[in-house]
């Protein structure tokens, strides 16, 4: 059997290499559905991007891209041995527009009619509706394909299968074995949640329920993790006794977790109310009093003071509180803690306790409190930047990363690699927020030098994105070559035409680049990459870096400053002034 894996990535500008686990999954699914026991060959290398503009205005491009890939089947392979797996599962279901799927159906139909490929496995996150236009079209394939043979499996990641073929009516089935296969590739929900639990720095001031004012330097925010929280909550709930009948919660600062709790309560058809409402509303409290026990759910537990306060108040109101509570974040380093022998607390994730401060240095400096639920500032506060710097220290700028066309290397720069290891989740989160405030084009990607810290930053940034971002990394040695020739890229593109970065750039059209670097000293790297964009007929929409050592608009030698800049911290020490004493 010969497979073509057509992994569709919606909202991405360019191609990226396919993952081996995705290929392996397709092989297993094909074997399972088609009863094949022999060797499967699959030489797919890259994904198929459909950018947002195409998804709205040029839907037919999906059909043409699929057909184009299928035409790469070696003609010597028998038709019955060719299988196309069209995989949409790395996209959210809502983004798979019906007109887009109809365009796919058109491409498949053409492929069937001209004997390019007759066997298809379409994998979607959920099953499209039976009466929808797409499934209707699949149901009429026999009428449309004439006398041609075909077999189309429409498979959803939750195990639903619909089989359409030339010689029978559509067959529906549920295949639990497929669910397990898909879950292995989708990743562990807990690992995903850990990556989306961001530790923020700031000046977080909170008044406890007892009226005490406390300041903290760290606060956690969980973003875009509704599904993971729901999965873990359901897992935790499954181990509770049947005597649980309601939930009371305090989740005002964790909207994601609150949604998960309310979703679960709705599924279970049990009450779920805010603790504040229950304590203020006697009727509401009364509705929760009975034989059934009530589970307490909060967003963070540290000392447990607030939880115990709630416990005592709710008991006075007559509620029977279950002796196990749940929190999204359990501080103190352990996922489960016991509070004063009364109640144990399970956390979905564990984090270190807050540092107890007798005196808040930020209050001493009159720094305004920062928000618990959103980033107040687009850039890093100086206090936070120097706190991070103190933790990670300095290092000499790596020699291999010094641009060839101007200035000396920095003797000391912050140890950005360590900074990203320690604080990268928050730095990426801030950068994502800053980028989101700009006129971000629908079709954009990241272009950067292939360097350790820069690459680490784009990996972290991708964790914040709703859909996968295409990242093109150009080796520093190639950028050096360009800079030595005055940023002329034409010959270099020929020389490196089979490289991954060149392939990626060729796969894109009408896309805007965010040039991303870890720090800026002289604008020279950005200028080089801008010249590359012009050569490949793509456009530049913004430049972003963690630290800008060259934020001033004054330039020497008549050079124009790079416009549309985003930086998280500015520190005037431009590279071209180095060596002046």
């Amino acid at each position: 059997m010969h497979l073509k894996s057509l992994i569709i990535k919606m909202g991405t500008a360019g191609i990226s290499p396919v993952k081996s686990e995705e290929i392996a999954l397709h092989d297993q699914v094909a074997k399972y559905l088609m009863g094949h026991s022999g060797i499967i060959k699959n030489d797919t290398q890259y994904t198929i991007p459909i950018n947002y503009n195409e998804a709205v205005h040029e839907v037919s491009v999906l059909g043409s891209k699929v057909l184009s890939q299928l035409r790469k089947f070696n003609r010597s392979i028998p038709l019955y041995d060719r299988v196309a797996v069209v995989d949409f599962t790395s996209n959210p279901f809502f983004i798979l527009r019906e007109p887009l799927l109809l365009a796919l159906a058109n491409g498949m139909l053409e492929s069937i009619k001209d004997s390019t490929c007759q066997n298809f496995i379409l994998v979607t996150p959920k099953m499209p509706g039976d009466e929808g236009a797409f499934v209707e079209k699949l149901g009429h394939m026999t009428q449309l394909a004439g006398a041609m043979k075909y077999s189309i499996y429409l498979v959803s990641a939750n195990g639903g299968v619909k089989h359409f073929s030339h010689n029978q009516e559509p067959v529906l089935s549920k295949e639990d074995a497929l669910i397990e296969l898909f879950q292995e590739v989708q990743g562990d929900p807990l690992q995903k949640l850990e990556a989306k639990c961001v530790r923020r720095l700031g000046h977080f001031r909170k008044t406890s329920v007892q009226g005490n004012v406390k300041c903290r330097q760290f606060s956690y925010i969980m973003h875009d993790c509704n599904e993971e929280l729901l999965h873990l909550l359901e897992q935790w709930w499954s181990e509770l006794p049947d005597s649980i009948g309601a939930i009371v919660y305090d989740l005002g600062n964790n909207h994601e977790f609150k949604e998960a709790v309310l979703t679960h309560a709705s599924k279970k058809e049990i009450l779920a109310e805010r603790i504040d409402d229950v304590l203020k509303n006697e009727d509401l409290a009364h509705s929760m009093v009975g034989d059934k026990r009530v589970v307490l759910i909060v967003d963070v537990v540290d000392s447990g003071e607030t939880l115990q306060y709630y416990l005592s108040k709710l008991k006075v109101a007559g509620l029977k509180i279950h002796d196990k509570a749940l929190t999204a974040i359990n501080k103190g380093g352990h996922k489960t803690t016991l509070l004063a022998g009364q109640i144990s607390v399970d956390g979905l994730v564990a984090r270190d306790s807050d540092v107890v401060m007798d005196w808040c240095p930020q209050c001493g400096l009159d720094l305004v409190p920062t928000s618990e639920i959103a980033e107040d500032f687009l850039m890093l506060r100086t206090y936070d930047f120097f706190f991070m710097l103190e933790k990670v220290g300095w290092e000499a700028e790596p020699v291999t990363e010094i641009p060839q066309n101007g200035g000396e290397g920095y003797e000391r720069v912050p140890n950005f690699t360590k900074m990203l290891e320690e604080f990268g989740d928050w730095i990426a989160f801030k950068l994502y927020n800053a980028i989101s405030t700009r006129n971000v084009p629908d079709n954009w990607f990241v272009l950067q030098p292939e360097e350790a810290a820069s690459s680490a930053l784009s990996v972290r940034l991708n964790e914040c994105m709703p859909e996968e971002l295409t990242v093109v990394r150009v080796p520093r040695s190639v950028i050096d070559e360009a800079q030595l020739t005055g940023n002329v890229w034409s010959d270099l593109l020929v020389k490196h035409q089979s490289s991954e970065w060149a392939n990626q750039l060729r796969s894109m059209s009408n896309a805007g680049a965010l040039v991303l670097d870890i720090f800026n000293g002289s604008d020279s790297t950005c200028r080089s990459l801008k010249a590359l964009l012009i050569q490949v007929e793509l456009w530049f929409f913004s430049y972003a870096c963690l630290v800008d050592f060259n934020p001033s608009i004054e330039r020497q030698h008549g050079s124009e400053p790079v416009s549309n800049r985003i930086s998280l911290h500015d520190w005037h020490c431009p590279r071209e002034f180095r060596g002046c004493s």
Partner: protein
Amino acid sequence: MNLQNFATSEPQLLSRTSFLSADRLSLEGSVMTDDFDAALIKFLRNGDASRPALLDMTNVSYVDIAALSNMIATLSQRCDLGCTTHLAYPAEKSVRDFLATWRFPDALTRATLRPFEEILLPEDCHYMAEDQTTYSGTGDGLSKLEFDADWHPTSLTRRNFFEFLSFADGDSKISPTQHSSIPREEGRSWARPLVSQILKKHLKGEKSRSDIARVIIYESLSNAVRHPKANLIQVVSRFSRSAKSKDKKTLRICVWDNGESIIKTLRNALDNEAGIRSFILPQYMGERIRVDISKWGGKSKTYHISQTEEIPSDATDARLLVASLFPGVTSTRLSEVPPVDPFDGLSSTCSTGEEVGLKLEKAPGMGLYALMRTALDQFQGSLFIRSGMHNLKIRVAHDAYRVVDSVRYKCKITEYPPEVPTFKGNLLVIKLPLREIP
């Protein structure tokens, strides 16, 4: 209107009593879109259209969100024409609370570009300071979606998931280049687990609820953002569970844009001799529709049409309005129409993948059709469109019509009387039935 109030040297504040009965759009009891239209027509027939008007909601006990969208469009148009309109707020608190929770004042301001306090009668302005008490956010999941008691102005989420949303050019959040992100981002909101769970619990049938976000929300907004000259789009929705509403039990989703009418857009394409059919349909798509067309308050004439029929260059506005729902109908047609299904026989005419790609590109016109299939066939709901001088209501034909007329859909088109101005923009209302929940 009693002009004597304005003859004195001291300016007198407008009040309900400043307006004669003939100068009011009086709404009473449970108000649906048709009720608002009836009140508007009565007002227009009683005098000059440009005279000051009072939209009197004093005695309203329930108001449908489609009626609110209709009101917003009408008031916005009157502002454009320099006609003064004032609003008398409902006496019933629960209705005022509904308007506040759904952010109707903001929506009206965004559409008219006038502060709400300028439109509201001075004697009712004190209502803007009252606390809302009807929606507490306690109760089931739907109640929680309707009012988030934890909401704060700096929150990144909406206080009421279903509230009026306005997307305008020049918004700090939405730029012209991001207009096309509206369907995607709103589709993302409707795909979240809590909303999906609520849809699963309340919508009738066992069908794929995920198609609400993927098809209904996405395609209705995708259609709106592409209407020429649309620089404001408003979306609002509501689960109607109230026994006293005429809604019966439905989920209603309304999308209004202030762009060019669908009818005019298609008419322009026809007049340019470009045609509006992007390709000729395969036979299985040739569903028949029973169309009853009437003038406002008049008798109807019945026609039976097929989705595959050629749309003539002299098609009436009513014909164009229903044709907008046909598969493959668009104002941005291919420059040449292939004789059969556009992708048939491509390999014999194209020698390279690039040529295939060019031929396959731009076969639009399936968005509204996909929406209709999902709303009507999948969820047994209905669509309402208000555009130009017409409104259209369409649903799956019931057994009697299916058997007798061999039609799949039943459609009613009403033409408004000539004194009614052409509707500003396009209003699309999707209605989906809910199940009975004990």
